[in-house]
């Protein structure tokens, strides 16, 4: 069925409206980051700053150690993403390929474990890490992030593994490929977009995470970016809006860049196996 020109225009218009709706908070953040203090309190705010300034960025860097916090966040997020994927991939493969009762129970448990709220686990976790002497250390935080990201990463990867037809592996075996060769040459390349997507998920959730970092890191030099951002907020929710927006804008950039670079691979991975050709 052919879509008429009017209908097509309507579709694009709806899409544009949806995009604007999604982008609104980010665009407002960018606008705020470049506005001087007096413009922020204007009764008639404008999208484009009338008198754009970099003062908020200067103040944000002067007041808080943003660069050091960003490096801490990067270390924690990269470590968490890498380790989560390394652990989740073989687990997901087994759970996807061996459809036993145990695998089903394990998958169910993984889903259930997502329901535990932060506040329920934070004190036992704190005591556990204290006994392991991992309080106030980025490796300790990475460990927590890995455990926290693992269930969802596993659940995502099981779906990706299932999308890779088992027949391909059987065909490779018939052609004489060993088990390892099959996994490395056949399954792994097909699974790559899924692994990247999962790593991205683990990276972004660790990059944005606030509460564990707040509780587990005591030394100011080890604090991550989300924790440092709260230092721009005072009692009763009063905020130093300009520097906060500037710092938040900078904190959002890495996630955006990483996502922009690999988004094609993600959509490719998500669609893999969706239709029979």
């Amino acid at each position: 069925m052919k879509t008429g020109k009017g209908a097509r225009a309507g579709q694009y218009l709806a899409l544009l409206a949806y995009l604007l709706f999604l982008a609104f908070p980010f665009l407002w953040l960018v606008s705020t980051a470049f506005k001087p203090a007096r413009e922020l309190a204007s009764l008639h705010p404008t999208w484009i700053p009338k008198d754009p300034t970099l003062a908020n960025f200067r103040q944000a860097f002067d007041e808080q150690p943003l660069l050091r916090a960003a490096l801490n966040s990067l270390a924690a997020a990269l470590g968490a993403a890498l380790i989560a994927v390394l652990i989740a991939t073989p687990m997901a493969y087994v759970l996807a390929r061996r459809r036993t009762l145990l695998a089903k129970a394990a998958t169910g448990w993984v889903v259930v474990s997502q329901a535990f709220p932060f506040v329920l686990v934070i004190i036992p976790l704190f005591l556990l890490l204290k006994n392991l002497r991992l309080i106030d250390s980025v490796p300790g935080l990475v460990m927590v992030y890995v455990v926290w990201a693992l269930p969802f990463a596993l659940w995502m990867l099981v779906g990706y593994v299932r999308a890779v037809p088992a027949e391909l592996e059987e065909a490779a075996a018939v052609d004489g490929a060993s088990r390892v060769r099959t996994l490395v040459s056949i399954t792994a390349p097909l699974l790559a977009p899924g692994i990247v997507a999962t790593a991205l998920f683990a990276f972004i959730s660790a990059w944005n995470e606030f509460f564990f970092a707040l509780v587990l890191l005591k030394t100011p030099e080890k604090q991550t970016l989300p924790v440092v951002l709260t230092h721009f907020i005072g009692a009763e929710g009063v905020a130093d809006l300009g520097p906060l927006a500037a710092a938040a804008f900078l904190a959002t950039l890495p996630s955006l860049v990483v996502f922009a670079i690999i988004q094609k691979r993600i959509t490719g991975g998500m669609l893999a196996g969706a239709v029979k050709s």
Partner: protein
Amino acid sequence: MRARLLVILAVFGLLLTACTDSGRDPHGVITLRFQSLAWQQESVAANKDLVAEWNATHPDVKVKYVQGSWDSVHDQLLTSFEGGEAPDVIHDASDDLADFAYGGYLADLRGLLSDRLKSDIPRRSWRTTTFGDGIYGVPFLQEPRVLIADAGRLRKSGVRIPTPERPWSWAEFRQVTKKLSGDGRYGVAWPLKEPVSATLNLSLSAGGQLFHRGADGRVTVRFEAGDQLVPRTIHDQVGADRSAPDSTLGSGGSDTLPGFFGGKYAMVPLGFSYRQQIVQQAPKGFDWQVLPAPAGADGLTQGVSPQTLSIAEDSPHKKEAAEFVDFLLRPKNMVRLALGDWMLPTGTEALKDPALHTDKYGWATGTALADRLSPAPAQSVRGYPEWKDKVATPAFQEYYSGAIGLGELRRRLEKDGNLVLARYQR
């Protein structure tokens, strides 16, 4: 041989103890962790400067400045206390201390503080940090709620300008806001995102108590005439007079500033420290002034929850921590902290400082109110947070928006409220 081995083991043991003794390095230097919630540029600078000055003059007791956040301090402290990893010196507010004090996490400061500090801070301020028989924090900064007014508009209207000596009564305030309203403009904008603390604290001026402690020590809620004056005034300004907009009832103080600068509102009741934002954000040439909040039967009395400094019960160096607190709160230092935070010091000596008596930015008006600031009515009532969240906040919000009347407000605060409090007093 055996004796030598014992000596070696003893020395090793001592070294190990030295290394594991929290906050003391092998050279015997004690390190205290001071978690500050200062967040404004000037305030952070004042705190850091004072820490640097202490460290320069106390080589044996080093203080490490740790930046905390108002946004999450309760959860963060609770976890740190449970895990035995709390900072030695803790900056917080008196209304956040009850659970920590009753939970045994904070040191009783009675035997630790100097006589100078004890006598410098008035008894009414100490009451804000007294829980049971102990004192669990040093109240050091506080702020009254004041009216920030568009000076030009007030002058033009010809209304009498109130002073701390001759404030407006609540009835007069209502008349003034009526006179200042019209043509889409309002006499006052009430930012009541947190309606309970604002209402209860201001109600002290009219003799409101709300929480009544019986001879058996049990607390009950009674919403009496003195408690009703302030809520009724606000309700009538919004609903009957249209001299206050209903759109700001759910807003925070900062959210009302654009409307204030834009001429929409003639006055905004705000905490004294908001002046810093006004100085930063007001359009050039905007003429504003600080007025005292209206007075009732009890004059200008109002409730406050001062900022506090406490010492963790688990700290192995309470004496040194108390000495550091004493240093931070010497009159001159207290003034520096107060100026940095745009608040008032609690110390009587600090309050005499000329910097706090200048008319610029309304400092003199705020300082004149200092001796009328009392403990917020509810802060030592167990179960208050639940009463506030589950009963009082929705009840006041609905009353101010006109959804319920005074009778229903009273029923909810008393009947539903007392059920909540009773659970904490069994």
